[in-house]
C-alpha cells in the first residue's frame, strides 16, 4: 500500500472514531438533560460543584427557564468554568450534581483518537503529494475538519465546552465523509499556478479560519435553540429538547461564539489579503471578482455585519446569532457551491 492509500485509510479511521464520539457525546447530553429533569436528586447530590451552578441547576430544572444574568449558568459550565481552566474539575464535578458523565469521557477519548488518526492522515497525504496537503477540495476538507476538531479540543483544555462536542464532531463527520466520498482525488503534485509559498500561507489560514468559524457556528446555533426554549417556544419545549437546559446560558454561548468569531474574522481578513497578494503574483491582478473572490467578499461582509450587529442597539443577542448562521452558510457555499457550480480561476477542486 502506498503512502497515499494509507492516508486515505487513516482518514476513514478518523471518521469511524468521530462517529463513535458523536454517539457518546449525544448520550452524554441526553443524560445531562435527564439529570436536569430531576432537580430534587440534583440538589441531594454531591453538591461539590460551584454554588452558583447548584442553585441555578435547580432553578432551571424546575422552572424550565433561565434568567439572563451571567452567573445563571446551569450545570456543567458555570461562568467560572468558561473563564478559567477546568483542569481540576473531573468529569464528575462538571457532570452536574449526582450524574456521572462517563459517556463524555468516552467521547473525548475517541475524539482525541480520531484527531490523532486525522493528523497522521494529513501528514501522510502531504508526504504522498510532496507538498502541503491542502491544494484541492478533498485536502481542504481533510485539513479544515482537522482544525475544527483541534480547535474544539484546545478549547476544552481551557474551559469546559464539551457540550459543543456533538455539534462540532457531527459537522466534521458529515464534512469529512462527504470529502472522502465525493471530493476525493489521488495525491499528486500541483499545476504551476499553485506552485507558490502562498499556497502554504493563504490556504492554511483559510482552513484554520473555516475550522474556527465552524466551532462558533455550533455555539451560535445552540444559543438560538436554547434561547427559543427559554422563551417557551412551543416546538422546543418538548421533552427531547431538554438537553438544551444543560447548556450554558445563552449569554455565555453568545460570548463564546463571539470570541471565536473574532479570531476567525481576523484570519479570514488575512486570508483575503493574502489571496489578493497571491492573485497579484499568479494572475496579474489583485482582485478580479472571480466567483471565489466574490463569495469570500460576501463572507467577510456578513461577518463584519455580525460584528456591527453585536454593538447595535436591539441587534445583539438573538439577531446577532442569526448573522453567524447566515455567515457560516456563506462560508460553506463559498467552499462547496463556488467550487462545484461556477467557472472561475479558483478551479482547484481537482474534480
Amino acid at each position, binding site marked *: 500500500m502506498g503512502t497515499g492509500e494509507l492516508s486515505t485509510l487513516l482518514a476513514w479511521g478518523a471518521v469511524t472514531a468521530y462517529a463513535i464520539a458523536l454517539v457518546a457525546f449525544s448520550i452524554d447530553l441526553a443524560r445531562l438533560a435527564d439529570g436536569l429533569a430531576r432537580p430534587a436528586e440534583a440538589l441531594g447530590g454531591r453538591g461539590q460543584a460551584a454554588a452558583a451552578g447548584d442553585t441555578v441547576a435547580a432553578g432551571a430544572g424546575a422552572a424550565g427557564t433561565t434568567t439572563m444574568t451571567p452567573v445563571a449558568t446551569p450545570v456543567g459550565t458555570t461562568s467560572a468554568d468558561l473563564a478559567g481552566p477546568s483542569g481540576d474539575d473531573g468529569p464528575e464535578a462538571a457532570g452536574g450534581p449526582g450524574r456521572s458523565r462517563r459517556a463524555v469521557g468516552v467521547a473525548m477519548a475517541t475524539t482525541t483518537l480520531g484527531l490523532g488518526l486525522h493528523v497522521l492522515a494529513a501528514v501522510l497525504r502531504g508526504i504522498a503529494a510532496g507538498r502541503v496537503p491542502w491544494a484541492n477540495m478533498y485536502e481542504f476538507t481533510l485539513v479544515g475538519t482537522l482544525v475544527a476538531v483541534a480547535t474544539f479540543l484546545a478549547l476544552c483544555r481551557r474551559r469546559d465546552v464539551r457540550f459543543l462536542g456533538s455539534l462540532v464532531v457531527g459537522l466534521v463527520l458529515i464534512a469529512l465523509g462527504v470529502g472522502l466520498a465525493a471530493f476525493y482525488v489521488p495525491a*499528486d503534485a500541483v499545476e504551476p499556478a499553485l506552485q507558490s509559498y502562498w499556497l502554504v500561507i493563504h490556504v492554511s489560514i483559510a482552513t484554520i479560519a473555516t475550522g474556527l468559524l465552524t466551532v462558533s457556528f455550533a455555539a451560535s446555533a445552540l444559543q438560538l435553540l436554547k434561547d427559543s426554549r427559554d422563551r417557551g417556544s412551543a416546538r422546543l419545549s418538548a421533552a427531547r429538547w431538554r438537553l438544551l437546559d444543560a447548556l450554558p446560558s445563552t449569554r455565555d454561548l453568545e460570548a463564546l461564539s463571539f470570541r471565536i468569531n473574532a479570531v476567525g474574522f481576523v484570519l479570514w481578513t488575512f486570508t483575503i*489579503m493574502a489571496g489578493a497578494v497571491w492573485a497579484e503574483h499568479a494572475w496579474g491582478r489583485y482582485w478580479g471578482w472571480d466567483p471565489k473572490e466574490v463569495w469570500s467578499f460576501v463572507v467577510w461582509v456578513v461577518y463584519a455585519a455580525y460584528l456591527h450587529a453585536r454593538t447595535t442597539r436591539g441587534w445583539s443577542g438573538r439577531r446577532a446569532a442569526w448573522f453567524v448562521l447566515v455567515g457560516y452558510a456563506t462560508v460553506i457555499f463559498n467552499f462547496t457551491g463556488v467550487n462545484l457550480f461556477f467557472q472561475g480561476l479558483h478551479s482547484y477542486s481537482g474534480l
Partner: protein
Amino acid sequence: MSEDYRPDGHAGGPYAETEPGAATPVALPRLGFVGTLRWTWRQLTSMRVALMLLMLLAVVAVPGSVLPQRPQDPAAVARYLADNPGLAPWLDRLGFFDVYASVWFSAVYILLFVSLVGCIVPRTRVHLRAVRARPPRTPRRFDRFPARGSAVVDAAPEEVVGAARRSLTGSVGLLPRFRVDDAVEAGGARTVAAERGYLRESGNLLFHLALLGILVSVATGQMLHYRGQALVVEGRGFANAVTDYDTFEAGTAFDPRSLVPFTLTLDEFTAEFTTDAAASPRDFVADVTVTEPGAEESVTSIRVNHPLTVGGAKVYLMGNGYAPELTVHDAAGELAFAGTVPFVPEDAQYLSRGVVKVPDVSTGEQVGLVGYLLPTAEVTESGARSVYPQPFDPLLVLTVWSGDLGLDDGVPQNVYELETTEMTQVLEEDGTPTTILVGLGETVELPGGLGTLTWDGLPRFMAVDLRYDPALPWILAFSIAALVGLSVSLFTPRRRLWLRVTEQDGRTVVDGAALARGDDLGLDGELDRVMDAVRALDGR
C-alpha cells in the same frame, strides 16, 4: 453629547452592559429642509444603517458570481444574451453583466463609505480627547460591579498602593498596561483608579480609516494603471508601446508617453507535463532577454507566480501554445506568405485552433486556411485527436477557403476567425470539405490548385500580460494597517479597575472592583492579579 461619542443606534457607552436596551422609538421630528437633511445624515451615519448597508453590500455582490460578467468573460455574456433573448437584454440594461461597475452596486458601497466617514470623523475627534483622559474617579460603592475582590494585609496602605501601581502598570514603562491614578479621599481612605484599553478605539479607527485608504488607493490605481496583453513567439521580440499590444487598456489619467520603451525577446519557452494521460501541467518557463533604454541587455526568465518587473511594470506569464512557422506559395509559385501563426490551445492536450490568412497572392483569389494543430497526433477512422501536449508527432489538419478575406474594407478583424462571407470552401466531390494533413517539414499541394503550403518549424509562443499600477504598495500598506487595527480593536480588552485601601484595627483592608466593556472573560483574572500582588506584600 458626552465624551463617548457613539454613532446613533450604537448600544450604550463604552462601559454599558451589553444587554440590549429597548430600541428607542423613532421620534418623528418636525422637518424643515435643514431638519430633513440633518435627520437623513443622522440616519445614514447610524449603526443600524451601516449594518443594513453591509448586508445589502453582501446581497448585491452575489449576482456577479452567478451571471457572466463582461470584464471577465465577454464571450460568455454574448452567449448568455443569445440564449436568453427575453430576459437577458433587461438584465443587460440594469447592469447585471457588469455588476461591480453598476449604478446600484456603486451606490451601496459609496453610501456605506459616506456613512463610514460620517461615523469616524466625530469618533476620531472624541477619541483624540479621550486618549489623554485620566481614569474615572473611584466610585463610592463597589457592590454593583461584576468583578470584586478584597484582601486584608499587614503592609502599610502606602505600600499597598505602590504594589498595586506596579502590578497595574507592568514592566514596560513606556507602554503601561494600565493608566493609574491614586488619591486620598476625605475620610482618609486611599484609592487607586486604573483604566486600560485606550488602544481599542484607536485600533478600531485605524481599521475604518484604512478601509477608506484602500478604497481611495484602488480608485487612484484605476485612474493611473495600464494593462496590455501581448503574444510573443520564440525568437521574436516585443516592444513596450501601445501599438505593440494585442489589447491595451488604461485609466483615464494614464499618459501613453510614460511607457518605458523596453524590449523583450522570448529566447526559449519550456513546458513540462506529467507523463500520465491527464498530462497535467507542471512547469512553464519563459527565458527572455530584456533591454531597457540606456541599460545592458539582461537575460532572465518569467514563470507563473514569478512575474518579471521591468520599466516599472510587471510582466505576467498568462498562457502559452504553438505558433507553426508556415510558408505559402500561390498558384503562380510566388511566395505569398511566410511567418508564424499562433494556434490557441483548446484542451489539456493542446489541441489548438488557428487561422492562416493569405491576402498577398500574386494571382487568383485570396486564400484562408482554418483548422487544428495536434502536437501528438493520433489519426483513426473517426478522426484525428491530440493525445499529449508535447510536440512528439505534430500534425496540422486544415480546410481551405478561397475568395475575399475582407481585410481591405478597414473593419478590424479577429485574427483567430476567418471571415467567410465572401469566401468559398474547397470541397470534395461528395460535398464534404477537403481536409489536408501536413506533417512538420512537409510541403503539400493546396487543393483547388491554390498553391502549396510548407510547414517549416514549430516554435512556441507565450501570452503575457503587462501591468502597471502605482497604487499597489499603497493598497498593501492600507491592508496591513487595516489588519493591525482590526486585531488591536478586537483583542484589546477595555477594563477599569479600582481599589480602596483603608486601615481597620491596625490592618490594611483592600477592596477592589473591576468593570469591562462588553463580554470579558479575563476580568476576574485581572483583578485577582492585582490582589495577589497586594497579598504578596505580606509574604516577603
